[in-house]
């Protein structure tokens, strides 16, 4: 029904997360209506991101150079490492603005059901970084679910003798109404309450 190139574009777009066949069609027709330069820019951006972005050699965040902007920044606290599952987990921590240390991106969380074992995560590399010295504290910021928790326990076991290991607290979201918090969150916040 549609010319082959259009059909091909729709097929490719519908592989993207959250994009179904219908949305893919809308985007495809939208692109057809846009000026040539604009679509060229989009195509180039996609090519660039794959060609120019690699993993930072130290923390495995996305980077354009050997080391990412955090690892190159000498003003950041070199004695602190915050361990996250994926590069996008860094964004909310940076937005918070309070953290001035370095990162380490594991590339996932332990999950035998999904075939993710310790050697698939960058745990050996984290141990090496700590082994080089100068690190005083490792903050484990894996997600507060069963996979993230197991990953945290696994890493904590390996590091406990060498360095101080901490875990992000979990509980009520700041600025939200208690009324809208789910039962499990309230339950956890209650058990982790503190004295004023």
């Amino acid at each position, binding site marked *: 029904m549609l010319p082959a190139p259009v059909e091909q574009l729709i097929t490719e777009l519908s592989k993207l997360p959250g994009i179904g066949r219908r949305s893919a069609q809308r985007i495809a027709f939208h692109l057809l209506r846009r000026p040539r330069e604009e679509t060229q820019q989009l195509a180039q951006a996609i090519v660039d991101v794959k060609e120019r972005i690699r993993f930072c050699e130290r923390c495995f965040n996305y980077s354009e150079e050997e080391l990412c902007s955090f690892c190159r920044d000498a003003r950041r606290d070199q004695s602190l490492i915050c361990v996250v599952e994926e590069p996008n987990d860094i964004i909310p921590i940076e937005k918070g603005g309070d953290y001035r240390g370095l990162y380490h991106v594991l590339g996932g969380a*332990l*999950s*035998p*059901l999904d*075939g993710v*074992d*310790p050697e698939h995560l960058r745990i050996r590399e984290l141990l090496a970084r700590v082994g080089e010295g100068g690190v005083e504290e490792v903050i484990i910021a894996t997600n507060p*679910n*069963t*996979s993230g*928790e*197991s*990953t*945290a*326990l*696994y890493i904590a*076991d390996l590091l406990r003798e060498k360095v101080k290991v901490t875990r992000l607290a979990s509980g009520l979201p700041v600025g939200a109404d208690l009324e809208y918090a*789910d*039962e*499990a969150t*309230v*339950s956890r916040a209650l058990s982790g309450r503190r004295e004023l």
Partner: protein
Amino acid sequence: MYLEHLEIKGFRNYRQGSVSLGPGVSIIVGRNGAGKTSLLEAAQYSICGKSFRTSRDAEMVREGSGFLRVSAAIETGGVKRSRLVSLQPGQPATVDQGGGPRWEQAGSVLCFSPDDLQLVKGAPAERRRFVDEAVSRRRPAYQKLAGDYQKVLSQRNRFLQRARAGIVRLADISPWDRQLMSLAFQIHDEREEYCRTLSPAFAEAYDRISGGSGSAEAVYRSQLQAHAGEEDREAAAVRELEQQWGGDLERGATSIGTHRDDIEFRVGGKNMRVFGSQGEQRSTVLALLLAEAVTESPGGERPLLLLDDVLSELDPDRRGRLLGALGNGFRSQVIITAADYNLIPVGGCEAAVVLEIGQDGLIRAAEAGDV
């Protein structure tokens, strides 16, 4: 929960039907196939959106009708509301909830049908589910806890299979062990607490039905109890689990945890699952239901009890005592079905209202000569 009035259209074998109910015990009499069970089903469906007979809603729509409609006048916590539920096969039910919740909590209606005997006779999983559902109604956060436990258990079992295949090192199972035991003890404490409160109510209900005295109990059985009173019971259980690594590896399954729990219903020291007669097992399930109904829920609101065909399997003494137990200061509304007037014990319950299903689907008070 008090169901005052129910009107049904196109439901199972009903073209149309309606019934008004008192706040106490109502006994619905009708020959086989008259629509007694369907009436209970309609009551449950209109309130909770679930049926104890089927998980496929479309089955409830009368053949050739194309849709069903159930309207219910209910009172909860002193507030009267009317609800209207309609269903067309292939579409989600539409609910006019009259200012109330879309569906009432599952526990606001408790059903017993002859199939529920599995609760006593069946596998431990049946009894764990009964307890888990009861705990979830009291503590909604428990559901997430139980879900997390299942997840960690599946992860650990898969890990064992991967270790057996030589893909991972068995020693790396430790994070899963510790997380499993941490969740297991939280589940253990909730289940234990529930059985502790249930047991005396169960004993009392069983006595009232059987005419016995104080020998019934609901006993929680868990492997984790071996570590009760230890200083760090979680660590002790993790060590015990470590000792099972070899066997677990071979089976590819986890040998210790709350997934192995059971609840024993004992009467006079006899485990009802193994040694109970049909009648005793039936009394046990009924006593559990009664106990669950009186064990105070957070809101203090008593559930509606729907008892399908429970009288036929009990001896006349027990029938009389059951109705006595339900009628006398029980506070929950109860609807019972029976195929035959002879099943209603004489003088067994002055408080019960007997209704009969007529050919036209109208349900009216039985005449004095019938009973």
